[in-house]
């Protein structure tokens, strides 16, 4: 039972930002929701999937973000309110459709919710989705707190319907994943009928055909919509000002930076000296509103994360208005007051403010910072980024690494996006030598595989997760097979989108709503393309290693090796142990010649612990998942596995 569908108007709930967004969508009567998992966005579709059936909402985890946006758009075209959610770089994947969708326009209210990850806490990029709003000419909203996240989402659907245009509502990690109080509104009655109308006048936005052409006409119409949005934004309640009438300095900000700015002003006691203009509608900027606040002072600081999106757009307006409002001095990214990389926090804003206003204050004195660092280093156990105990990836990369070392031709692995990206680190025996976007490992490998004519003779592997395979791995494989590239694609099939929380994908027999669904057999897909396909259990180290060696010696075409073993954390596994692991301390060679702690020095499953006093390995029974793999890497046979006996009821 999800509290998100409680129909108690005015009740207060502590909600995560993503949940607040979902509640807003529910209050708006959303009927179609699709997305692809990606931190920090995943909880949006996940929360909707939990209430979907009961509230009569179609929810799906799509194969990728582009398809998700298309699925959501279909709902809109049929008159329903729809949303699609994704992480920042998901918008890149969807952007081609987005460009055309912005031109054709929408019908039922449609909201695109990208959740950006400044500082790349859970990403391998610091991508900006805001620029897409400007690039494809659609309105952009950014909630500044949790109540707003809910209210603004609801309003975004209304705005979309008013403009007949998709609206982007952009969140960030600290908005999506932090929590705050949210007051609930009413849930609408749920009776809608879906129909796609197409036999009206061809250019009719509600009954014509949905297409981006004639381009000149549609593009002009699109800009009209943007102009209308700009007018609506002039009086939008999500744009607020706090501060004196004539501040010494005006901060303009949006999103989570609102909270940092507010805190910084308070910490420095600048309530009477600094004004805070918080914008909820960040594209297109409402010029009259900006004019009003820019006129208050000559010193403007823009506080935002990553790229100077707001800063650039405000500066353009200020330049245009200069004859009326005078010349302004700007502080922000361009003068280095606010960093252009990484997340912001209150301290960064405090320092920027103190420096700008000549206040002698340091958010964190160096001495304190050093001391804190020292305490942290001394007091915390060193825990490197690593695969979980019992993770199939550790076993897979063990075999991949060993196969490549034995082969000795400087072979390498092109990586992809998933937990297995960590194989750039010692936990994956540093096997990965490239990693970019979803599916690109196999695309790159396919390219490397065509360089033979230039003397390239290194064996090439790519690794690709099962969900990644469906997302964008397939086109790379098709391309490579057709062009007779020579490489081995290793599909690390752990039965789910594991890194983001086990969302289903088309390879599984279940969908987002929990219904049974036809599954697509990865091996059969690959075989039908004409690739040589092998399937192995990565926990069988020797067989896996042998197979990899055979495949990389096979110089003919594309080979696919599916390493199938369920994620150790998978809910389906229910922490079930296959083996009880024990150590025979008398046999353990420890640091002696013949072993030198291969299990705790190289293999490094967190379930294996080096006992410094006894100079033997111990099993941490609390976290050991009983996969049994370490028994096979122990050269002395000191690690013993015994099958866990199932109790008969």
């Amino acid at each position: 039972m999800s509290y998100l569908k409680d129909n108690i108007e005015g009740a207060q709930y502590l909600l995560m930002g993503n949940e607040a967004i979902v509640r807003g969508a529910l209050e708006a009567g959303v009927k179609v929701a699709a997305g692809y998992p990606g931190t920090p966005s995943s909880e949006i579709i996940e929360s909707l999937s939990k209430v979907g059936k009961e509230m009569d909402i179609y929810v799906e985890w799509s194969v990728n973000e582009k398809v998700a946006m298309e699925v959501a758009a279909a709902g809109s075209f049929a008159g329903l309110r729809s949303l699609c959610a994704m992480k920042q770089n998901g918008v890149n994947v969807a952007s081609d459709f987005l460009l055309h969708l912005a031109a054709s326009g929408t019908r039922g209210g449609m909201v695109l919710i990208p959740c950006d990850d400044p500082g790349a806490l859970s990403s391998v990029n610091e991508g900006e989705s805001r620029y897409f709003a400007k690039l494809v000419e659609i309105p952009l909203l950014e909630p500044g707190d949790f109540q707003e996240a809910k209210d603004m989402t609801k309003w975004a659907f209304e705005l979309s319907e008013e403009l007949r245009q998709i609206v982007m509502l952009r969140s960030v990690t600290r908005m999506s994943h932090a929590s705050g109080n949210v007051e609930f509104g009413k849930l609408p009655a749920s009776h809608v009928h879906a129909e796609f109308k197409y036999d009206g006048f061809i250019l009719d936005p509600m009954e014509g055909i949905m297409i981006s052409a004639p381009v000149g006409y549609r593009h002009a119409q699109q800009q009209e919509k943007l102009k209308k949005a700009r007018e609506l934004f002039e009086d939008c309640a999500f744009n607020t000002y706090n501060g004196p009438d004539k501040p010494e300095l005006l901060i303009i900000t949006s999103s989570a930076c609102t909270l940092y700015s507010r805190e910084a002003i308070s910490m420095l006691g600048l309530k009477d000296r600094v004004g805070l203009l918080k914008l909820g509608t960040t594209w297109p900027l409402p010029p009259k509103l900006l004019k009003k606040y820019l006129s208050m002072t000559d010193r403007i600081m823009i506080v935002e994360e990553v790229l100077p999106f707001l800063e650039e757009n405000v500066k353009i307006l200020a330049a245009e208005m200069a004859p009326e409002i005078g010349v302004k001095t700007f502080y922000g990214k361009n003068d280095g007051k606010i960093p252009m990389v990484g997340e912001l926090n209150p301290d960064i804003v405090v320092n920027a403010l103190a420096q700008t206003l000549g206040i002698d204050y340091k958010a964190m004195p160096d001495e304190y910072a050093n001391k804190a660092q020292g305490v942290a280093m001394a007091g915390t156990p060193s825990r490197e980024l690593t695969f979980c105990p019992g993770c199939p990836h550790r076993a897979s990369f063990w075999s991949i690494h060993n196969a490549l070392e034995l082969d000795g031709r400087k072979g390498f692995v092109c990586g992809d996006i998933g937990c297995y990206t960590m194989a750039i680190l010692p936990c994956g025996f540093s096997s990965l030598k490239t990693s970019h976007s979803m599916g690109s490992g196999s695309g790159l490998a396919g390219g490397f595989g065509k360089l033979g004519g230039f003397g390239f003779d290194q064996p090439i592997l790519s690794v690709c997760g099962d969900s990644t395979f469906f997302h964008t791995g397939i086109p790379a494989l098709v391309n490579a097979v057709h062009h007779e590239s020579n490489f081995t694609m290793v599909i690390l099939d752990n039965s789910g989108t594991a890194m983001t929380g086990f969302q289903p994908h088309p390879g599984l027999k279940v969908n987002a709503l929990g219904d049974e669904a036809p599954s697509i057999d990865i091996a059969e897909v690959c075989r039908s393309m004409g690739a040589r396909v092998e399937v192995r259990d990565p926990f069988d180290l020797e067989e896996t290693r042998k197979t990899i060696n055979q495949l990389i010696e096979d110089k003919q075409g594309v080979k696919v090796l599916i390493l199938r073993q369920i994620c150790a954390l998978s809910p389906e596994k229910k922490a079930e142990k296959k083996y009880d692991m024990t150590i025979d301390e008398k046999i353990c060679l420890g640091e002696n010649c013949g072993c030198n702690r291969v299990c705790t020095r190289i293999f490094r499953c967190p379930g294996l612990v080096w006992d410094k006093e006894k100079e033997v390995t111990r099993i941490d029974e609390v976290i050991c998942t009983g996969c049994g793999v370490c028994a096979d890497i122990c050269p002395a046979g000191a690690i013993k596995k015994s099958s866990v006996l199932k109790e008969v009821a």
Partner: protein
Amino acid sequence: MSVFGPNELLEDVFQKDLCIGCGACTYLCPYFRSYRGKTAMLFPCTLDQGRCWAYCPKVEVDLDDLSQRFFHRPYDKDPLGFHGSVKISRAGKQVGTGSFQAGGTVSALMSFALNKGYIDAAVLTDKDGILPVPRLVTDPDDVLKCSSSKYTASPTLSALNQAIKEGHSRIGVVATPCQALAIAKMRSNPMSDEDFTDPVGLVVGLFCTWAIDFRAFDAFISKRIDVNKVTKVDIPPPPAEIMEIYTDSGKVEIPLDEIRKLVPNSCSYCIDMSAEFSDISVGVLEGRPDMNTIIVRTKRGQNIVDEAEKEGFLVLDNLPKENLEHLMWAANNKKKRALIKAKEDGLINTSQEDKRSYLRVRPETVEEIIS
């Protein structure tokens, strides 16, 4: 002499391209493995001392020390090393049939030794297509399955390490000169292990002028024939100057000059043609494809040869004088060439503090051989 570890093995042997892939360092630990004729280090090891370095026949081989240990005298200029009788031989009637090269003496000796309990396991070299495969054998009947010569370098000693791990204590090994050298180093207990007992019961050495790099050979002949169909490879005794490759569809002859290009660099520093650190050495006999040359070096070697002859496993005869002279001449040539090259390349008798050597032997012995 100080013993070093895996990192020095990389530095002294791997990086100098001296590794012949004998297998001495493999299967002792999780780090060194052999694959398709090449030895690989899978993961870094941090130990200062290790058996991998200590057993390697390509680093700090102190010939005088080893000779003293096994033959109770320093190494000298004799082209055939320390030895007793040199004769000719072939397998006797008690030996079953196998696809022997020449007289089948090696198979005869090993099956006899296993049969009569002189050894409890035999470390041999089998083949899979053209790939040499180390084999640990305990049934005398399995010895013959491994007969016939392999000309590519083989990690045979990985099977010796396996045999020791399995607890065999009188192991017989058929070894090339470099492998016999590694066994000698291993038997001298370089790690000063208090519990050490010599696990080797018999070393039958093979004459060898050079071996071929497996991967280079595989690439070379794959272009000419289907390697999966190779049934036998032979290099008939001089003056033939060819390698014969037999397949289902006949014989292919390849001039030895082409094959010599596939010999690893490491072999050019090897001073040993007759496997001097073995109990018994066996090779071909020029002009007599049905017989072998046999050199007996140790008491236990002599004992086994005598008993094998008595029991009908081995037939012996005298070696014609001109054959012995030619054998000595060839063996001496190999020594000379190798010592001159090792000297030129600074791989012999370097000052200990300065850098480690491949080989150590009294300088006067070196001069005696070279001159």
